[in-house]
């Protein structure tokens, strides 16, 4: 599986995503600058966590205006896999590739902690290696991860089996405990927790590996 990580100004989990991917795939990850207009030929595009443009105005809003977004939309349109983690998820909702929006945490504070998630759906390139209903523990680290969408959208997401992860103990006020969702074509995933931070037992656990293994199995 070949993958690319997009680097926006003040992305800061770009290296983490690349390191996790390299560790899992054994192949070099390509780093792509936000000003580029083309993507290299890859199976997976990752929009990493961080504070693109300082999270000024709205998280992900300015990154969504980057040149590279055109190529990412085209890649997604062709069915290519896109993974948005944390700030990457915010960019995806801002761009319309995923529905809804991520608002300020209900507690109004930044939260960094390990949270329990249930894997809601395993019918996807991102989650097939997990068991349905499995509980996994991933870290969150965000100030604006409070998922919002109108009821009709939420019903549709649930009806289509596109809610992929739910919080067991909602840390941020997200509607219906949603932590991660898929797009309609099931090739774009956005989630607030950080799977790339849990691929090494020494630094927090290995519960994030399943996501990368799923992708490797599907895309290789």
């Amino acid at each position, binding site marked *: 599986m070949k993958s690319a990580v997009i680097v926006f*100004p*003040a992305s*800061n*989990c770009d*290296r*983490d995503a690349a*390191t*996790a991917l390299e560790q899992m795939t054994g192949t070099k990850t390509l780093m792509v600058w936000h000003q580029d207009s083309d993507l290299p030929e890859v199976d997976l595009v990752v929009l990493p*966590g*961080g*504070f693109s*443009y*300082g*999270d*000024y105005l709205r998280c992900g809003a300015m990154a969504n205006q980057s040149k590279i977004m055109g190529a990412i939309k085209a890649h997604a349109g062709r069915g290519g896999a896109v993974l948005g983690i944390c700030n990457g998820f915010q960019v995806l909702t801002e761009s319309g590739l995923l529905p809804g929006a991520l608002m300020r945490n209900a507690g109004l*504070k*930044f*939260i*960094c*902690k390990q949270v329990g998630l249930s894997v809601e759906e395993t019918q996807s390139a991102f989650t097939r290696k997990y068991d349905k209903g499995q509980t996994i523990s991933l*870290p969150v*680290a965000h*100030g604006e991860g409070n998922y919002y969408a109108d009821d009709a959208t939420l019903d549709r997401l649930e009806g289509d089996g596109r809610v992929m992860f739910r919080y067991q103990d909602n840390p941020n006020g997200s509607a219906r405990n949603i932590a991660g969702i898929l797009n309609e074509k099931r090739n774009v995933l956005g989630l607030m927790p*950080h799977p*790339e*931070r849990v691929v*090494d037992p*020494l*630094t*927090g656990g290995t519960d994030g590996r399943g996501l990368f293994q799923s992708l490797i199995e599907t895309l290789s």
Partner: protein
Amino acid sequence: MTTGMKTVTPELVREHSLTPDEYGRIKKLLGREANFVELGVFSVMWSEHCSYKSTRAHLKKLPTKAAWVIQGPGENAGVIDIGDGDACIFKMESHNHPSFIEPYQGAATGVGGIMRDVFTMGARPIAMMNALRFGEPSHPKTRHLVSGVVSGIGGYGNCMGVPTVGGEVNFHKSYNGNILVNAMCVGLARTDKIFLSAAKGAGNPVVYIGSKTGRDGIHGATMASAEFDDASEEKRPTVQVGDPFTEKLLLEACLELMATDAIIAIQDMGAAGLTSSSAEMADKGGSGIELDLDKVPQRETGMTAYEMLLSESQERMLAVLKPGREDQARAIFEKWELDFAVIGFTTDTSRFVIKHGGAVVADIPVTALSDEAPIYERPYAKRAPVTGAPTFDKSKPVLASLEKILAAPDMASRRWVWEQYDNSVMNDTVQHPGGDAAVVRVHGTKKALAITTDVSPRYCRPDPFEGGKQAVAEAWRNLTAVGATPLAVTDNLNYGNPQKPEIMWEIVAGIDGIGEACRALDFPVIGGNCSLYNETNGEGILPTPAIGAVGLLKDVTRMATVAFKRQGDVVILIGETKGHLGQSIYLREIEGREEGAAPMVDLAVEKKNGDFVRGLIASGRVDTVHDVSDGGVLVSVAEMAMAGRIGASIGMAALPEAAPFWFGEDQARYVIAAPFAEAEKIVKEARAAEIFVAELGKTGGDALVLDDKDRVPLARLSAAHEGWFPRFMAGEEIPATN
């Protein structure tokens, strides 16, 4: 163009916090009267903050050398060799005053400032710590300050993508009007890629990079000057606003430039901005410098030379490049959308020359701003250290006292604080906040750095010397407790007004204590910062010499954590317990008194016990260790139990008095836990080595059981320990004491 020039009068000199004697010295050095701009330059360069005029003579006594020290004090940060061509660069700095005025921005810019000190030397920051002191919880300002400072630290550090991995939080009434915000940054570089600030050579371009210059933070002393009167209050904010987004770009751009060989010298613009960075670079390089202020990128119109030279706008750096490399550098900064301008050049005149609007507005010998700055041997008056052992009520039930102590403001879990910090970004955090020291892996290796900050100000007031020693010893102990070899120290000396002989003595004794401990433990001081005049209404803060320290784990899989890991492990106490209750948490929280002598640190014993424990961890025999500090042995055992969610049954036969043993704060002690067979061997070896050792009991169950009769469920202890901070911050609890 307004030159902002005005005549220098005695009045103006005083407004710049310079004494008549100091101004006399300035005239002599210049051979004439200073003009207004020059007066401003001298006032900041000769300020306590920049010149260390009260402490310089004493700081010289600190040990700064060891085989592994690459760069000691004097540069933006200290550097140590951690093997394999890797260098660790770190420093700690205070942002006390701004954080009191505007907690969010004050703390945020403190974080930004210390990060620049570290990355200006070529390091990528990999970890942040912060040591915070607030007033008593019941003070009306405290909650607001805690909330603002913590979110400011998080706001800046989180955006930078550098994990904040630990620190300290204390509450005490002496900080009611003067909080302390000390931030520490640790970075990594290669030993052959370290950048210094010496602007050697003449004719080399001086470049300005980062954010534009505005009228931020211009020295308070100059506020009264008439020049500003026409402008509204609004024009001169004394508090700077941090822009972590720009800092992140500046970090990446600087590291990119540093990967080339275009740089001769580089330095961040910290306190006194353009003035101190340029003067210090010229001074260190033995050169002169000439700057043209018209070329400085400016955020506002009509700025005077005085304003530009004294501005403390954030997120700016100054570099001296090899001639001809300007375009290469400019391309990098343009890519990162940062300002870049050639604003001057180095000279061979040894003079600091500033031009504005085509005219020379300052012309000063460089050494007048550095070596010739006054140094004061301020008089100090020794106060006899407080001695004696306090009395206490022997009938108080031990476990009830424990529960109360675990929920005391200084002892309760800091989870509320560190959950607002991204402590796992960069994916190398091996020990998160909550343990003895944070452990951060050196990316891509099996090595790791252990990091801690420590000081017990309550010991430093009754005995500044022992308190200074103790701060170093505790830092060394915390590093040892995770299995690291302690390597070096950065200090942050927070004291009151040095012009008061009693305070000056606290400073001198504190430095002496730190020096003695660092020498005995082979733990050199490679950098530091002094913050003096921490007073309100004539009341000084508790002397607070915070010690930041770094150690090395050669193999991160050979590491200890505080959590109990298995049922049935033997719990062992290493180190002698005499039962020292003077100035202890027990005395303060249970008896409501701050009395008695501070505990003494026997440095030889400290070293012996620590080396023994570290040996056990390094050989893979022990993985569960906690040092004994605030609150004593029982608090350590309880913390280990809560962290591991495994209880323990402990006891001590034939104790004449329970409280001194369980809550005494004797130094040089550790609690460890190991399986039975291993534990037997450890006890034998310790005895053979003449190290005090005692078996306290066994791990197991879901309660803490004392002497086989009293018990308290862990869930209850955890609820007390975890509950206080969130309740306090939610406004549900305002304790009357402390």
